């Protein structure tokens, strides 16, 4: 079953809602101050970053408390603060933020996980010379992500979305001197860009159709009944309504950011960034932004669904999510880099979240998002700790036996791993994943996603066991001596481990607080739910799947520690299959052969066009002008000057000629005078003879 979000009409904004803009603004301001600080001021940088995020956390908790209080009293809270940014003719460009349960839980999660990772980073990046720059970018990222969370205007959301993409680029390519890191950053940016193009199209279409940028605006917002009704009337192509088409376009954007098939290729490469970056961005927050986006525009995705039925948009979301979950899990089986296994695991879990949104609704998907944020961040930070302790080694085949050398890391990592696998009862991952599986089981359209997701769960358990056995069990195969990480790194691990267990409590069927909170329903404690047949059946199924995966993994890998050069156990079983999995199922190669090859060819065409055609035209024009200039000069010298000079010369010559007539002798003049008089007189006399 799916539930949308139906709320009572909005109330006027409370104080905390009005002050909510501080939550993203403070980290951004901190980032700005760090940027202009005289380098290096390490303590100041990290202090500013952590301090601003800590205040944001406090504000987020206050907001959460406010929303919680409202929910507890039966009055759902959705408060918005909107303002007009620019007036363009008759249209207004509006921005604004919203405070509702969805935003509140996300705010708390982001600020809390973010703060823990900031603290962890002070230890991890201790020896890095660009410490200050790191915290500047990290702070900016936190601010941008928080902006995405609270945005009530789709334009503001997009602006913060792009800022998140930018800071992710800056952080992935943090060690920019490494060519692989620079390439990975570029890949991340370009791939998410592809998704963002569709997202932008969706935004423009939505704005054009509904006339407003705001989600919630006292009944006039684009996610409210009036606008949705209007969207349903219009029909786009292929039997889709406008609502469905816009939903799919927005999903394309989310697919880019959240690494769904086929835009997942950037996420594993993004592991080139420092581990805290992987933890924050690629586990907890940025990749979750896509899922959050779908949750935010869920009324749009769900518009037009009949009771018990679903829409085309949500069907697409489900299938894509399920496919991603299985695909990525398969690839994770064949990877040897500790972070890469986790990266593909993230992609797989994101697929789960999207599928959960599709089959079960906002609460189901969001619950898995929240729990995943905590245990994935834990796993990444644990991996960072392992890398730190193994002297920057990242290949799992060169690790081993670390459970005795790094006990705290081992314990916390184990908790995270069990949560990820969804080991029943105690771990939050079980409850959130179970919620998705349960919803998939009851999906009206098809059963296949359920089987895919179940298979994915099996694979998850399998590859995580493989990883654990390589890293922590067996014997040490690396160089040097492994040691435990400092307290500043292990303490956040412990805090996250606590949450990885504890969060399960808020989402059980007996007390579905999380789901009720998001859906504005009262939550009642019904322990009897634990005894229901349906629940027990699903519990059994999940347990079987998980333990099967764990067992299979342990059987193949267990305490054995094969040398790095030896073949992997699975490889020995099926070399070709393992080879495909290790080569990431050739998706990158496919892109290289098609899109990138075309792009390179097109770049060559454009260069030829630019140099030959446009360049030729410009050169031709230049030549023409030179020719004209030469002609002009020729005319000027010969015709104008020439004629003038000639004329003067002629005058001088003729003057000379005439002057020669002057003999200078008076008698000659006199003679001429007399002769003239004679002629004149003769004429006169002759003419008067009449």
């Amino acid at each position, binding site marked *: 079953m799916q539930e949308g979000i139906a709320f009572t009409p909005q109330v006027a904004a409370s104080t905390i809602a009005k002050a909510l803009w501080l939550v993203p603004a403070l980290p951004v301001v901190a980032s700005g101050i760090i940027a202009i600080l005289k380098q290096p001021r390490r303590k100041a940088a990290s202090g500013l970053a952590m301090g601003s995020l800590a205040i944001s956390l406090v504000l987020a908790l206050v907001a959460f408390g406010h929303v919680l209080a409202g929910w507890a009293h039966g009055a759902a809270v959705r408060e918005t603060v909107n303002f007009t940014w620019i007036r363009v003719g008759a249209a207004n460009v509006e921005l604004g933020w919203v405070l509702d349960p969805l935003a509140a839980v996300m705010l708390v999660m982001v600020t809390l996980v973010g703060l823990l990772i900031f603290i962890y980073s002070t230890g991890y990046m201790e020896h890095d010379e660009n410490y200050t720059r790191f915290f500047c970018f990290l702070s900016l990222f936190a601010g941008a992500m928080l902006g995405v969370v609270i945005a009530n205007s789709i334009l503001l959301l997009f602006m913060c979305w792009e800022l998140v993409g930018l800071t992710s680029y800056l952080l992935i390519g943090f060690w920019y001197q490494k060519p692989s890191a620079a390439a990975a950053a570029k890949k991340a940016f370009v791939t998410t860009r592809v998704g963002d193009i569709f997202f932008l199209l969706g935004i423009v279409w939505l704005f054009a159709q509904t006339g407003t940028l705001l989600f919630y605006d006292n009944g006039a917002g684009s996610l409210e009944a009036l606008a949705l009704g209007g969207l349903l009337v219009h029909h786009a192509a292929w039997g889709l309504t406008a609502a469905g088409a816009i939903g799919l376009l927005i999903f394309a954007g989310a697919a880019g950011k959240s690494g769904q098939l086929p835009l997942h290729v950037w996420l594993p490469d993004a592991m080139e960034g420092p581990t805290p970056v992987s933890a924050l961005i690629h586990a907890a927050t940025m990749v979750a932004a896509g899922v959050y986006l779908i949750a935010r525009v869920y009324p749009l995705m769900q518009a037009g669904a009949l009771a018990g039925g679903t829409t085309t948009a949500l069907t697409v979301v489900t299938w894509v999510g399920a496919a991603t979950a299985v695909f990525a899990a398969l690839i994770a089986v064949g990877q040897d880099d500790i972070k890469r296994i986790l990266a593909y695991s993230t992609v797989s879990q994101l697929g789960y979240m999207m599928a959960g949104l599709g089959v079960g609704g906002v609460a189901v998907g969001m619950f898995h998002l929240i729990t995943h944020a905590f245990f994935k961040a834990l796993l990444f930070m644990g991996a960072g700790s392992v890398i730190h302790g193994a002297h920057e080694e990242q290949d799992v085949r060169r690790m081993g036996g670390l459970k005795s050398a790094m006990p705290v890391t081992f314990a916390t990592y184990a908790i995270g791993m069990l949560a990820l696998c969804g080991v029943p009862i105690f771990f939050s991952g079980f409850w959130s994943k179970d919620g998705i599986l349960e919803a998939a089981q009851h999906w009206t359209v098809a059963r296949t996603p359920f089987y895919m997701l179940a298979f994915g769960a099996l694979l998850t358990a399998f590859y995580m066991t493989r990883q654990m056995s390589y890293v922590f069990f067996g014997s040490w195969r690396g160089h040097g001596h492994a040691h435990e990480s400092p307290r500043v790194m292990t303490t956040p691990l412990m805090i996250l481990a606590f949450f990885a267990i504890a969060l399960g409590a808020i989402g059980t069927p007996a007390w579905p607080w999380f789901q009720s909170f998001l859906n504005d329903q009262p939550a009642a404690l019904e322990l009897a739910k634990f005894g229901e047949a349906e629940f027990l059946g699903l519990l059994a199924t999940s347990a079987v799947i998980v333990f099967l995966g764990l067992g299979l993994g342990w059987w193949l890998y267990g305490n054995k520690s094969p040398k790095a050069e030896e073949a992997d156990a699975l490889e020995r079983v099926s070399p070709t299959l393992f080879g495909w999995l290790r080569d990431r199922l050739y998706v990158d190669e496919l892109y290289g052969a098609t899109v990138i090859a075309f792009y390179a060819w097109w770049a060559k065409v454009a260069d030829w066009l630019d140099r030959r055609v446009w360049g030729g035209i410009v050169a031709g024009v230049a030549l023409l002008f030179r020719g004209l200039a030469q002609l002009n000069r020729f005319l000027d010298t010969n015709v104008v000057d020439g004629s003038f000079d000639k004329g003067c010369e002629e005058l001088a010559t003729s003057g000379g000629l*005439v*002057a*020669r*007539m*002057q*003999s*200078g*002798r*008076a*008698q000659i003049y*006199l*003679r001429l005078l*007399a002769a003239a008089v004679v002629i004149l007189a003769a004429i006169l006399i002759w003419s008067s003879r009449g």
Partner: protein
Amino acid sequence: MGMASPLVGYLLVAALVFAIGLAGALTRRNAILVLIGIELMLNAANLNLIAFWRYGPHPETLTGMMFAIFSIAVAAAEAAVGLGLVISIYRHAKTTDLEQMNRMKG
């Protein structure tokens, strides 16, 4: 009487003297002779004037006579200046030969 007017004789004489004076002014080399020729021309003109006065209408208005008298006066002044000039040129050029005076040659 049917005879030609007596004026004709005087006019012809005047014309002849004028022509002679002109010929002298045009052909002789010496500057002073040019002046002599000019004096002859002026005199011939005076003769013309007087002749027309005598035989023309209204001789009692004395127009012709006055004209001739003024002409004589002016001619005298002109002869004085001209000869002064010739003397001055002679002092400078040491000659009165007109053929050699071509400083104004173009």
